[in-house]
Protein backbone atom coordinates (compact mmCIF):
# COMPACT_ATOMS: atom_id res chain seq x y z
CA UNK A 1 0.00 0.00 0.00
CA UNK A 2 1.34 3.39 -0.97
CA UNK A 3 1.81 6.17 1.52
CA UNK A 4 -0.30 9.28 1.07
CA UNK A 5 1.23 11.50 -1.57
CA UNK A 6 1.74 14.99 -0.33
CA UNK A 7 1.64 18.39 -1.79
CA UNK A 8 3.55 21.24 -0.16
CA UNK A 9 3.54 22.70 2.42
CA UNK A 10 5.72 20.15 4.13
CA UNK A 11 6.50 20.62 7.78
CA UNK A 12 8.26 23.88 8.59
CA UNK A 13 10.66 23.27 11.48
CA UNK A 14 10.78 25.71 14.38
CA UNK A 15 13.90 26.52 16.34
CA UNK A 16 12.61 24.06 18.93
CA UNK A 17 11.94 21.21 16.51
CA UNK A 18 14.89 21.71 14.14
CA UNK A 19 17.04 19.04 15.85
CA UNK A 20 14.21 16.53 15.42
CA UNK A 21 13.97 17.17 11.67
CA UNK A 22 17.77 17.20 11.36
CA UNK A 23 17.57 13.72 12.89
CA UNK A 24 14.94 12.29 10.56
CA UNK A 25 16.92 13.61 7.60
CA UNK A 26 19.88 11.53 8.82
CA UNK A 27 17.69 8.51 9.51
CA UNK A 28 17.67 9.06 13.28
CA UNK A 29 14.54 9.17 15.44
CA UNK A 30 15.19 11.68 18.23
CA UNK A 31 13.03 12.54 21.22
CA UNK A 32 13.45 15.12 23.94
CA UNK A 33 14.46 13.61 27.27
CA UNK A 34 14.06 15.62 30.47
CA UNK A 35 17.36 16.45 32.16
CA UNK A 36 15.72 16.36 35.58
CA UNK A 37 13.28 13.45 35.70
CA UNK A 38 14.27 11.53 32.57
CA UNK A 39 10.78 11.56 31.02
CA UNK A 40 10.45 11.52 27.25
CA UNK A 41 7.96 13.84 25.62
CA UNK A 42 6.16 14.41 22.34
CA UNK A 43 5.25 16.86 20.79
CA UNK A 44 8.40 19.02 21.24
CA UNK A 45 8.06 21.41 24.18
CA UNK A 46 10.37 23.82 26.00
CA UNK A 47 9.47 22.31 29.37
CA UNK A 48 9.04 18.80 30.69
CA UNK A 49 5.34 17.95 30.65
CA UNK A 50 5.90 15.72 33.72
CA UNK A 51 8.13 17.76 36.09
CA UNK A 52 8.25 21.17 34.30
CA UNK A 53 12.04 21.29 34.18
CA UNK A 54 13.42 23.43 31.35
CA UNK A 55 16.47 21.16 31.04
CA UNK A 56 16.42 18.64 28.20
CA UNK A 57 18.47 16.86 25.57
CA UNK A 58 17.57 15.32 22.20
CA UNK A 59 18.41 11.62 22.39
CA UNK A 60 17.99 8.81 19.92
CA UNK A 61 14.87 6.77 20.65
CA UNK A 62 14.17 3.14 19.82
CA UNK A 63 11.69 3.84 17.03
CA UNK A 64 9.57 1.05 18.49
CA UNK A 65 5.87 1.65 19.06
CA UNK A 66 2.49 -0.01 19.09
CA UNK A 67 -0.73 1.16 17.48
CA UNK A 68 -3.00 2.86 20.04
CA UNK A 69 -5.77 3.48 17.50
CA UNK A 70 -6.15 4.38 13.84
CA UNK A 71 -8.47 5.40 11.03
CA UNK A 72 -8.41 4.47 7.38
CA UNK A 73 -9.14 7.68 5.49
CA UNK A 74 -11.21 7.34 2.34
CA UNK A 75 -11.97 11.01 1.65
CA UNK A 76 -8.76 13.05 2.00
CA UNK A 77 -8.92 16.64 3.22
CA UNK A 78 -6.78 18.00 0.40
CA UNK A 79 -5.74 16.97 -3.06
CA UNK A 80 -2.39 15.23 -2.93
CA UNK A 81 -3.36 12.56 -0.44
CA UNK A 82 -3.94 9.21 -2.06
CA UNK A 83 -6.75 7.30 -0.32
CA UNK A 84 -7.08 4.96 1.34
CA UNK A 85 -4.36 5.67 3.85
CA UNK A 86 -3.93 5.08 7.57
CA UNK A 87 -3.70 7.84 10.18
CA UNK A 88 -2.81 6.52 13.61
CA UNK A 89 -1.94 7.41 17.15
CA UNK A 90 0.99 5.20 18.17
CA UNK A 91 2.32 4.72 21.68
CA UNK A 92 6.09 4.98 21.59
CA UNK A 93 8.16 2.48 23.59
CA UNK A 94 9.46 5.50 25.52
CA UNK A 95 5.91 6.47 26.52
CA UNK A 96 4.64 9.43 24.50
CA UNK A 97 1.73 9.24 22.06
CA UNK A 98 2.44 10.27 18.46
CA UNK A 99 0.25 11.02 15.45
CA UNK A 100 1.57 9.41 12.27
CA UNK A 101 0.81 7.27 9.22
CA UNK A 102 1.05 3.48 9.11
CA UNK A 103 2.64 2.46 5.82
CA UNK A 104 4.03 -0.57 4.00
CA UNK A 105 0.98 -2.68 4.70
CA UNK A 106 -2.62 -3.08 3.53
CA UNK A 107 -4.84 -0.77 5.62
CA UNK A 108 -7.06 -3.81 6.24
CA UNK A 109 -4.22 -5.45 8.14
CA UNK A 110 -3.68 -2.63 10.64
CA UNK A 111 -4.78 -3.58 14.16
CA UNK A 112 -4.77 -1.89 17.53
CA UNK A 113 -1.77 -3.05 19.64
CA UNK A 114 0.12 -4.05 16.48
CA UNK A 115 3.87 -3.57 16.91
CA UNK A 116 5.32 -1.00 14.52
CA UNK A 117 8.72 0.49 13.77
CA UNK A 118 9.64 3.97 12.58
CA UNK A 119 10.55 4.47 8.92
CA UNK A 120 11.59 7.62 7.11
CA UNK A 121 10.08 9.08 3.98
CA UNK A 122 12.29 11.66 2.31
CA UNK A 123 10.09 14.28 0.66
CA UNK A 124 12.69 17.03 0.13
CA UNK A 125 16.34 17.74 0.83
CA UNK A 126 15.31 19.22 4.18
CA UNK A 127 12.43 17.05 5.28
CA UNK A 128 12.11 13.34 5.87
CA UNK A 129 8.75 12.43 7.37
CA UNK A 130 8.56 9.85 10.17
CA UNK A 131 6.05 7.07 9.58
CA UNK A 132 5.57 3.60 11.03
CA UNK A 133 5.47 0.17 9.40
CA UNK A 134 4.70 -3.26 10.81
CA UNK A 135 7.62 -4.37 12.98
Amino acid at each position, binding site marked *: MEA*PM*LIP*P*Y*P*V*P*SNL*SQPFWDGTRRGKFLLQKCGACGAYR*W*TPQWLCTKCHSLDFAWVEASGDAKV*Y*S*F*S*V*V*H*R*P*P*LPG*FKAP*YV*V*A*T*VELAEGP*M*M*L*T*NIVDCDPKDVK*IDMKVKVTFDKVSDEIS*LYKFRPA
Partner: protein
Amino acid sequence: MSQQREVAIVGVHATKQQRNSGRSALALIQEATNAALDDAGLKMKDVDGYIAFTFEGGNGSGVNEGNIAHQFGQPIAFTAQISGAYAVQMAAGAIKQGYADVVVIPAAGSTTLGGGKAASYTRPEYEFTEWTGSMTPAQFAIIARRHMHEYGTTIEQMAEVASRIQHNGNINPEAVLFGRAADTPEKVLNAPMIAEPFTRAMCSLVNDGASCIVVTSAERAKDCRHDPIWVLGGAMENRATSYFEAPTLDMMNSRDKMLRGFQRAGIRHEDTDIVMCYDHFAHGPIVQMETLGFCKPGEGGHYVPEVMGLDSKHPICPDGGNLSYSHNMIPYNFKQIEIVRQFRNDVPDLCPEGHKGIHTYDRRICRKVRDPKLAVGAGPMTEGRHGFVLLAKD
Protein backbone atom coordinates in the same frame (compact mmCIF):
# COMPACT_ATOMS: atom_id res chain seq x y z
CA MET B 1 -25.53 23.11 48.15
CA SER B 2 -28.71 24.90 47.21
CA GLN B 3 -29.58 25.89 43.71
CA GLN B 4 -28.88 29.55 43.15
CA ARG B 5 -31.05 31.54 40.77
CA GLU B 6 -28.96 34.67 40.32
CA VAL B 7 -28.20 34.69 36.60
CA ALA B 8 -30.41 33.82 33.64
CA ILE B 9 -30.48 33.39 29.90
CA VAL B 10 -33.09 35.90 28.76
CA GLY B 11 -32.66 35.99 25.00
CA VAL B 12 -31.64 33.58 22.24
CA HIS B 13 -31.60 33.56 18.49
CA ALA B 14 -30.33 31.40 15.66
CA THR B 15 -30.28 32.76 12.13
CA LYS B 16 -31.16 30.54 9.20
CA GLN B 17 -28.62 27.72 9.15
CA GLN B 18 -27.68 26.91 5.58
CA ARG B 19 -24.94 26.11 3.16
CA ASN B 20 -23.41 28.94 1.12
CA SER B 21 -25.31 31.83 2.66
CA GLY B 22 -23.25 34.31 0.65
CA ARG B 23 -22.88 36.39 3.79
CA SER B 24 -19.91 37.10 6.03
CA ALA B 25 -19.65 35.77 9.56
CA LEU B 26 -19.71 39.39 10.77
CA ALA B 27 -23.00 40.08 8.98
CA LEU B 28 -24.51 36.92 10.40
CA ILE B 29 -23.30 37.67 13.92
CA GLN B 30 -24.83 41.15 13.82
CA GLU B 31 -28.18 39.78 12.71
CA ALA B 32 -28.12 37.15 15.48
CA THR B 33 -27.11 39.68 18.14
CA ASN B 34 -29.86 42.13 17.23
CA ALA B 35 -32.47 39.38 17.17
CA ALA B 36 -31.40 37.82 20.47
CA LEU B 37 -31.51 41.22 22.18
CA ASP B 38 -34.95 41.80 20.68
CA ASP B 39 -36.00 38.38 21.99
CA ALA B 40 -34.83 39.49 25.44
CA GLY B 41 -36.54 42.87 25.21
CA LEU B 42 -33.17 44.61 25.51
CA LYS B 43 -31.16 46.98 23.30
CA MET B 44 -27.52 47.11 22.36
CA LYS B 45 -27.13 50.12 24.65
CA ASP B 46 -27.87 47.76 27.57
CA VAL B 47 -24.96 45.48 26.68
CA ASP B 48 -21.64 45.72 28.48
CA GLY B 49 -20.26 42.23 28.05
CA TYR B 50 -19.26 40.32 24.91
CA ILE B 51 -18.03 36.72 24.72
CA ALA B 52 -17.22 35.18 21.36
CA PHE B 53 -14.45 33.50 19.45
CA THR B 54 -12.72 36.14 17.40
CA PHE B 55 -11.32 35.74 13.95
CA GLU B 56 -9.90 37.82 11.19
CA GLY B 57 -11.70 38.66 8.01
CA GLY B 58 -10.85 40.76 4.99
CA ASN B 59 -12.24 44.23 4.32
CA GLY B 60 -12.86 45.02 7.97
CA SER B 61 -15.12 42.00 8.40
CA GLY B 62 -13.17 40.64 11.35
CA VAL B 63 -15.24 39.38 14.25
CA ASN B 64 -13.86 40.78 17.50
CA GLU B 65 -15.11 42.85 20.40
CA GLY B 66 -13.47 46.03 19.11
CA ASN B 67 -15.14 45.83 15.74
CA ILE B 68 -18.47 44.94 17.34
CA ALA B 69 -18.19 47.76 19.87
CA HIS B 70 -17.34 50.21 17.10
CA GLN B 71 -20.01 49.07 14.67
CA PHE B 72 -22.76 49.08 17.28
CA GLY B 73 -21.39 52.29 18.81
CA GLN B 74 -21.46 50.60 22.19
CA PRO B 75 -18.44 50.38 24.51
CA ILE B 76 -17.97 46.93 26.04
CA ALA B 77 -16.57 46.40 29.54
CA PHE B 78 -16.15 42.64 29.81
CA THR B 79 -14.86 40.48 26.99
CA ALA B 80 -13.67 36.91 26.59
CA GLN B 81 -13.03 34.55 23.72
CA ILE B 82 -15.03 31.35 24.01
CA SER B 83 -18.50 30.07 23.23
CA GLY B 84 -21.30 27.81 24.40
CA ALA B 85 -21.33 26.33 27.89
CA TYR B 86 -18.02 27.94 28.78
CA ALA B 87 -19.26 31.36 27.70
CA VAL B 88 -22.52 31.10 29.66
CA GLN B 89 -20.60 30.19 32.82
CA MET B 90 -18.12 33.03 32.30
CA ALA B 91 -20.97 35.46 31.71
CA ALA B 92 -22.58 34.29 34.95
CA GLY B 93 -19.32 34.83 36.82
CA ALA B 94 -18.82 38.30 35.34
CA ILE B 95 -22.41 39.30 36.19
CA LYS B 96 -22.17 38.02 39.76
CA GLN B 97 -18.90 39.93 40.23
CA GLY B 98 -20.32 43.11 38.75
CA TYR B 99 -18.00 43.31 35.74
CA ALA B 100 -20.99 43.30 33.43
CA ASP B 101 -24.76 43.48 33.62
CA VAL B 102 -25.88 42.22 30.21
CA VAL B 103 -23.60 39.86 28.28
CA VAL B 104 -24.12 38.84 24.66
CA ILE B 105 -22.62 35.57 23.43
CA PRO B 106 -22.73 35.57 19.64
CA ALA B 107 -21.13 32.97 17.36
CA ALA B 108 -21.03 32.61 13.61
CA GLY B 109 -19.31 30.84 10.81
CA SER B 110 -19.41 31.30 7.09
CA THR B 111 -17.73 29.11 4.54
CA THR B 112 -18.46 31.61 1.81
CA LEU B 113 -17.37 35.03 3.01
CA GLY B 114 -15.20 36.24 5.85
CA GLY B 115 -14.20 34.02 8.76
CA GLY B 116 -14.33 31.65 5.96
CA LYS B 117 -11.71 29.02 5.31
CA ALA B 118 -13.86 25.96 5.94
CA ALA B 119 -13.01 25.03 9.49
CA SER B 120 -9.37 25.75 8.77
CA TYR B 121 -8.57 25.36 12.47
CA THR B 122 -9.28 21.70 12.02
CA ARG B 123 -6.29 21.39 9.73
CA PRO B 124 -3.77 23.54 11.52
CA GLU B 125 -0.61 24.37 9.67
CA TYR B 126 1.27 22.43 12.28
CA GLU B 127 4.41 20.54 11.49
CA PHE B 128 3.33 17.35 13.27
CA THR B 129 -0.29 17.17 12.10
CA GLU B 130 -0.91 18.46 8.62
CA TRP B 131 1.26 16.10 6.59
CA THR B 132 -0.40 13.01 8.09
CA GLY B 133 -3.67 13.83 6.29
CA SER B 134 -5.52 13.62 9.59
CA MET B 135 -8.42 15.96 8.96
CA THR B 136 -11.14 16.28 11.57
CA PRO B 137 -13.06 13.03 10.95
CA ALA B 138 -9.84 11.00 11.12
CA GLN B 139 -8.84 12.65 14.38
CA PHE B 140 -12.10 11.69 16.04
CA ALA B 141 -12.33 8.33 14.29
CA ILE B 142 -9.12 7.38 16.09
CA ILE B 143 -10.82 8.16 19.39
CA ALA B 144 -14.01 6.31 18.47
CA ARG B 145 -12.09 3.21 17.44
CA ARG B 146 -10.14 3.19 20.69
CA HIS B 147 -13.41 3.39 22.62
CA MET B 148 -14.68 0.41 20.62
CA HIS B 149 -11.48 -1.48 21.40
CA GLU B 150 -11.37 -0.75 25.12
CA TYR B 151 -15.07 -1.06 25.92
CA GLY B 152 -16.66 -3.12 23.18
CA THR B 153 -18.68 -0.20 21.82
CA THR B 154 -20.01 -1.16 18.39
CA ILE B 155 -20.43 0.64 15.10
CA GLU B 156 -24.13 -0.31 15.27
CA GLN B 157 -24.48 1.52 18.59
CA MET B 158 -22.87 4.63 17.14
CA ALA B 159 -25.12 4.42 14.09
CA GLU B 160 -28.13 4.12 16.38
CA VAL B 161 -27.08 7.28 18.22
CA ALA B 162 -26.48 9.19 14.98
CA SER B 163 -29.76 8.08 13.42
CA ARG B 164 -31.83 9.03 16.47
CA ILE B 165 -30.37 12.52 16.47
CA GLN B 166 -30.85 12.81 12.71
CA HIS B 167 -34.46 11.72 13.06
CA ASN B 168 -34.95 14.88 15.12
CA GLY B 169 -33.25 16.99 12.45
CA ASN B 170 -35.30 15.32 9.76
CA ILE B 171 -38.51 16.74 11.29
CA ASN B 172 -36.99 20.13 12.24
CA PRO B 173 -37.82 22.62 9.47
CA GLU B 174 -34.90 24.78 10.63
CA ALA B 175 -32.36 21.97 10.25
CA VAL B 176 -29.91 22.05 7.36
CA LEU B 177 -30.79 18.41 6.64
CA PHE B 178 -34.56 18.85 7.17
CA GLY B 179 -36.34 16.11 5.26
CA ARG B 180 -33.17 14.41 4.10
CA ALA B 181 -31.26 13.37 7.20
CA ALA B 182 -30.05 9.79 7.66
CA ASP B 183 -32.77 8.86 10.13
CA THR B 184 -32.26 5.10 10.34
CA PRO B 185 -29.17 3.10 11.39
CA GLU B 186 -29.14 1.53 7.94
CA LYS B 187 -28.96 4.91 6.21
CA VAL B 188 -26.16 5.97 8.55
CA LEU B 189 -24.14 2.82 7.95
CA ASN B 190 -24.70 2.88 4.18
CA ALA B 191 -23.56 6.48 3.71
CA PRO B 192 -20.19 6.96 1.96
CA MET B 193 -17.19 6.05 4.10
CA ILE B 194 -15.16 9.11 5.10
CA ALA B 195 -12.68 7.92 7.74
CA GLU B 196 -13.23 4.47 9.22
CA PRO B 197 -15.33 3.85 11.20
CA PHE B 198 -17.19 7.07 10.33
CA THR B 199 -19.48 7.32 7.34
CA ARG B 200 -20.57 10.76 6.18
CA ALA B 201 -23.78 10.46 8.23
CA MET B 202 -21.69 10.02 11.38
CA CYS B 203 -19.86 13.31 10.79
CA SER B 204 -21.13 16.79 11.57
CA LEU B 205 -22.23 19.22 8.91
CA VAL B 206 -20.28 22.20 7.61
CA ASN B 207 -22.56 25.17 6.98
CA ASP B 208 -23.07 28.89 7.55
CA GLY B 209 -25.11 30.52 10.27
CA ALA B 210 -25.04 32.47 13.49
CA SER B 211 -26.44 32.31 16.99
CA CYS B 212 -26.57 34.51 20.04
CA ILE B 213 -27.37 34.09 23.72
CA VAL B 214 -28.11 36.98 26.11
CA VAL B 215 -27.33 36.54 29.80
CA THR B 216 -28.19 38.91 32.63
CA SER B 217 -28.87 39.14 36.37
CA ALA B 218 -32.04 37.93 38.10
CA GLU B 219 -32.85 41.55 38.85
CA ARG B 220 -32.54 42.68 35.26
CA ALA B 221 -34.34 39.57 34.01
CA LYS B 222 -37.55 40.73 35.66
CA ASP B 223 -37.98 43.34 32.93
CA CYS B 224 -37.26 40.98 30.06
CA ARG B 225 -39.76 39.65 27.58
CA HIS B 226 -39.57 35.94 28.46
CA ASP B 227 -39.35 34.01 31.70
CA PRO B 228 -35.74 33.64 32.81
CA ILE B 229 -33.91 30.40 32.13
CA TRP B 230 -31.67 29.97 35.16
CA VAL B 231 -27.98 29.23 34.94
CA LEU B 232 -27.42 26.89 37.89
CA GLY B 233 -23.79 26.03 37.30
CA GLY B 234 -21.65 23.61 35.41
CA ALA B 235 -18.01 22.74 34.92
CA MET B 236 -15.11 23.36 32.56
CA GLU B 237 -11.82 21.63 31.97
CA ASN B 238 -9.11 21.93 29.35
CA ARG B 239 -6.68 19.08 28.82
CA ALA B 240 -4.98 19.59 25.46
CA THR B 241 -5.33 21.28 22.11
CA SER B 242 -7.18 19.15 19.60
CA TYR B 243 -5.34 18.71 16.30
CA PHE B 244 -1.96 19.42 17.92
CA GLU B 245 -1.60 16.45 20.25
CA ALA B 246 -2.25 12.88 19.16
CA PRO B 247 -5.93 12.02 19.69
CA THR B 248 -6.62 9.69 22.63
CA LEU B 249 -9.39 8.97 25.15
CA ASP B 250 -7.79 11.40 27.61
CA MET B 251 -10.99 13.48 27.74
CA MET B 252 -12.60 10.77 29.82
CA ASN B 253 -10.26 11.83 32.63
CA SER B 254 -12.35 14.99 32.98
CA ARG B 255 -15.13 12.90 34.55
CA ASP B 256 -14.35 13.87 38.16
CA LYS B 257 -14.38 17.55 37.29
CA MET B 258 -17.72 17.18 35.51
CA LEU B 259 -19.20 15.27 38.49
CA ARG B 260 -18.11 18.05 40.84
CA GLY B 261 -19.99 20.51 38.63
CA PHE B 262 -23.22 18.63 39.30
CA GLN B 263 -22.46 18.43 43.03
CA ARG B 264 -21.64 22.14 43.29
CA ALA B 265 -25.00 23.01 41.71
CA GLY B 266 -26.83 20.54 43.94
CA ILE B 267 -28.20 18.69 40.91
CA ARG B 268 -28.52 14.93 40.50
CA HIS B 269 -28.07 13.50 37.03
CA GLU B 270 -31.31 11.57 37.31
CA ASP B 271 -33.27 14.80 37.78
CA THR B 272 -32.17 16.29 34.46
CA ASP B 273 -34.34 15.99 31.36
CA ILE B 274 -32.76 17.05 28.06
CA VAL B 275 -29.02 16.52 27.55
CA MET B 276 -27.53 18.46 24.68
CA CYS B 277 -24.39 16.51 23.88
CA TYR B 278 -21.81 17.82 21.47
CA ASP B 279 -22.49 15.42 18.61
CA HIS B 280 -19.66 16.46 16.32
CA PHE B 281 -19.29 12.78 15.48
CA ALA B 282 -21.38 9.73 16.26
CA HIS B 283 -19.22 8.59 19.18
CA GLY B 284 -19.59 11.99 20.87
CA PRO B 285 -22.74 11.41 22.92
CA ILE B 286 -21.49 7.98 24.03
CA VAL B 287 -18.15 9.22 25.35
CA GLN B 288 -19.68 12.43 26.72
CA MET B 289 -22.49 10.76 28.69
CA GLU B 290 -19.77 8.68 30.35
CA THR B 291 -17.57 11.71 30.96
CA LEU B 292 -20.48 13.79 32.27
CA GLY B 293 -21.20 10.97 34.72
CA PHE B 294 -24.58 9.74 33.47
CA CYS B 295 -23.16 6.24 33.23
CA LYS B 296 -19.88 4.51 33.99
CA PRO B 297 -16.93 4.69 31.59
CA GLY B 298 -17.50 2.09 28.91
CA GLU B 299 -21.26 1.77 29.43
CA GLY B 300 -22.25 4.47 26.96
CA GLY B 301 -22.68 2.17 23.98
CA HIS B 302 -25.56 0.39 25.70
CA TYR B 303 -26.77 3.23 27.87
CA VAL B 304 -27.04 6.14 25.45
CA PRO B 305 -29.44 4.57 22.90
CA GLU B 306 -31.68 3.54 25.83
CA VAL B 307 -32.00 7.01 27.34
CA MET B 308 -31.71 9.40 24.39
CA GLY B 309 -35.16 9.03 22.82
CA LEU B 310 -37.61 11.93 22.88
CA ASP B 311 -39.79 10.02 25.37
CA SER B 312 -36.91 8.49 27.29
CA LYS B 313 -35.12 9.61 30.41
CA HIS B 314 -32.61 12.01 28.85
CA PRO B 315 -33.57 13.11 25.34
CA ILE B 316 -30.34 13.97 23.50
CA CYS B 317 -30.18 16.69 20.84
CA PRO B 318 -33.89 17.04 20.01
CA ASP B 319 -32.93 19.73 17.47
CA GLY B 320 -31.00 17.32 15.25
CA GLY B 321 -27.63 18.32 16.61
CA ASN B 322 -24.44 19.09 14.78
CA LEU B 323 -25.11 16.03 12.65
CA SER B 324 -28.26 17.38 11.00
CA TYR B 325 -29.38 20.72 12.47
CA SER B 326 -26.24 22.83 12.12
CA HIS B 327 -22.51 22.86 12.49
CA ASN B 328 -21.49 26.40 11.58
CA MET B 329 -17.92 25.73 12.79
CA ILE B 330 -18.68 27.47 16.11
CA PRO B 331 -21.82 25.49 16.99
CA TYR B 332 -21.61 25.40 20.78
CA ASN B 333 -24.35 27.98 21.49
CA PHE B 334 -26.96 25.82 19.78
CA LYS B 335 -26.83 23.48 22.77
CA GLN B 336 -28.12 26.12 25.17
CA ILE B 337 -30.47 27.66 22.62
CA GLU B 338 -32.33 24.40 22.01
CA ILE B 339 -32.82 23.96 25.75
CA VAL B 340 -34.27 27.46 26.05
CA ARG B 341 -36.60 26.85 23.11
CA GLN B 342 -37.78 23.50 24.49
CA PHE B 343 -38.41 25.16 27.88
CA ARG B 344 -40.39 27.92 26.16
CA ASN B 345 -42.31 25.50 23.94
CA ASP B 346 -40.87 27.16 20.83
CA VAL B 347 -40.10 23.99 18.92
CA PRO B 348 -40.69 24.02 15.16
CA ASP B 349 -41.54 20.57 13.83
CA LEU B 350 -44.17 18.93 11.65
CA CYS B 351 -47.04 19.05 14.15
CA PRO B 352 -49.96 20.85 12.42
CA GLU B 353 -50.30 23.36 15.25
CA GLY B 354 -46.74 23.17 16.50
CA HIS B 355 -46.22 26.85 15.70
CA LYS B 356 -48.93 27.62 18.30
CA GLY B 357 -47.15 25.42 20.85
CA ILE B 358 -49.65 22.59 20.44
CA HIS B 359 -47.73 19.36 19.94
CA THR B 360 -48.92 15.86 19.10
CA TYR B 361 -46.03 13.91 20.65
CA ASP B 362 -46.37 11.60 17.66
CA ARG B 363 -42.65 10.99 17.22
CA ARG B 364 -42.90 10.65 13.45
CA ILE B 365 -43.65 14.38 13.29
CA CYS B 366 -43.08 15.81 16.77
CA ARG B 367 -39.76 16.57 18.45
CA LYS B 368 -41.09 18.44 21.47
CA VAL B 369 -39.85 16.99 24.75
CA ARG B 370 -42.61 16.60 27.35
CA ASP B 371 -42.41 19.26 30.05
CA PRO B 372 -38.64 19.65 30.46
CA LYS B 373 -37.53 21.66 33.50
CA LEU B 374 -33.85 20.92 33.99
CA ALA B 375 -31.30 20.36 31.26
CA VAL B 376 -27.63 19.90 30.49
CA GLY B 377 -26.02 21.91 27.71
CA ALA B 378 -22.60 20.50 26.87
CA GLY B 379 -20.01 21.84 24.52
CA PRO B 380 -17.36 22.60 23.70
CA MET B 381 -16.94 18.93 24.46
CA THR B 382 -14.23 17.79 22.11
CA GLU B 383 -11.09 15.98 23.09
CA GLY B 384 -9.25 18.89 24.64
CA ARG B 385 -11.89 21.18 26.06
CA HIS B 386 -14.85 19.95 28.04
CA GLY B 387 -17.67 21.81 29.65
CA PHE B 388 -21.36 21.86 30.37
CA VAL B 389 -23.90 24.18 31.90
CA LEU B 390 -27.02 23.32 33.90
CA LEU B 391 -30.13 25.26 32.92
CA ALA B 392 -33.52 25.31 34.64
CA LYS B 393 -36.91 26.94 34.30
CA ASP B 394 -39.16 27.87 37.18
